[in-house]
């Protein structure tokens, strides 16, 4: 294509039969997602988003708009949902107090329940439930601590953690996901 030519990109039209108009209520009925319907899609969130500025893949406004439109499958199964760095810059800048960072988390919660969370996060949850720490602890960490005059790493209340995860049903979702998929 020469300079000055107009590039015409054809995109698949959004068809109403593919939409789930109830999706926005699913989000709005959660504590974190309660303000989603206040969005008037000004895009301030996206203009200030440090991920959006860098990548072009993740745009908070687009995700919110897709939810409001009812593009349930696209939102829940897509990669962009998980690229929010949760820095909450958008939260503070939002004129409508949509709590965008929290809305993203509310959408992620649904995606997780349906088996679409990134494996790395599910693995991290396993480490948490099995050790009480958010990351794998090693003997070399204790060694380094000793050299610095610190005590050994304390024991975490793993049993309590597992009981809590059982009561909320979290453990089932963490451990059964792979077979279900």
């Amino acid at each position, binding site marked *: 294509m020469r300079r000055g030519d107009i590039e015409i990109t054809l995109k698949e039209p959004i068809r109403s039969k593919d939409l789930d108009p109830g999706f926005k209520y699913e989000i709005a009925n959660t504590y974190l997602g309660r303000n989603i319907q206040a969005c008037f899609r000004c895009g301030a969130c996206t203009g200030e988003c440090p991920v959006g500025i860098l990548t072009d893949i993740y745009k908070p406004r687009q995700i919110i708009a897709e939810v409001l439109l009812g593009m349930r499958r696209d939102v829940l199964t897509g990669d962009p949902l998980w690229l929010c760095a*949760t820095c909450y810059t958008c939260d503070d800048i939002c004129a409508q107090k949509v709590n965008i960072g929290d809305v993203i988390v509310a959408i*992620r919660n649904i995606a*997780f329940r349906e088996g679409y969370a990134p494996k790395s*996060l599910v693995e991290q949850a396993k480490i948490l439930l099995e050790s009480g*720490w958010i990351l794998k602890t090693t003997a070399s960490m204790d060694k380094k601590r000793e050299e610095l005059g610190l005590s050994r790493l304390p024991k975490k*209340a793993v049993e309590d953690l597992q009981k*809590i995860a*059982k009561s909320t049903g979290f453990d089932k979702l963490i451990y059964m996901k792979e077979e279900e998929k």
Partner: protein
Amino acid sequence: MKDFALYLGCLTPTRVPSYEVALRKTSEKMGLRFIEMENTTCCSPMSILSLDYFTTLSIGARNLAIVEEMGLDTMVTPCNGCFEGLKKAAAILRNYPETLEQVNEILATVDKEYKGTVEVRHLSKVYYDEVGVDKIKELMVKPFDSLRIGIRPGCHLMKPTAITGIDYSERYVFLDDLIKATGAESVYYKHRFRCCGGLLRNVSEEVTEGMLRERLIELKKGDIDCAVTVCPLCFLQYDLGQKLVERKFKEKYNIPILIYSELLGLGMGLSAEELGLKTHRVKLDSVLEKIS
């Protein structure tokens, strides 16, 4: 000054032990009394909140309940992730009695109950509000006046403001005052409050390192001697992550990074060795030379 329950979280004791050394060695001189918390768990941070809100709230409530059991009303944490997560949990549980009731039904299975009384504070804000700038000035024995510092507050110290209760703007934040209290200059540089991408490391290496690289370039342009943070995740990004970015993009930044508690320790006359600063990956020689 009253006693505080100390909640260290995961990253500080495991990955950034020099932060723990510094906060312990400096606290007594500042008149801060920290009481150790026992039988805690990880706070259930953003990555877990992203999977399940209610589980995260329950895990948070369990940790907060321990503070009540200790007969204390304030938890102090050196970690931005723990701070934002637990402060948010505490705010929800205080403002929504029904949610508190539901969470307590979960906690009953581990013989705990949370009454909703705990305040969560970040260590740096305790330095500022409880110790105060004047007292810190008095304790400094090293001349830092030639030192140009760029602050890295980290997102979850301030955002979202509605939860953290900490006002900020691109021009000013209380950390500037804390830096000035040590005698050093707090240099304004571009995007100093912008995210380092730390929480994306688990999801996309490409994005996390791309973001970190932008932050490093901005810091470099700020013509600073070193960056100072109060967040263990920012620290890992700027220390270990800086090395990874240098390798990946075949660039050199050489930006030394200190944690504010370490800076205080140095200012109070503790040696780099006593503070365990050799555990840093990015060499601190240029900074140490300047303040010797």
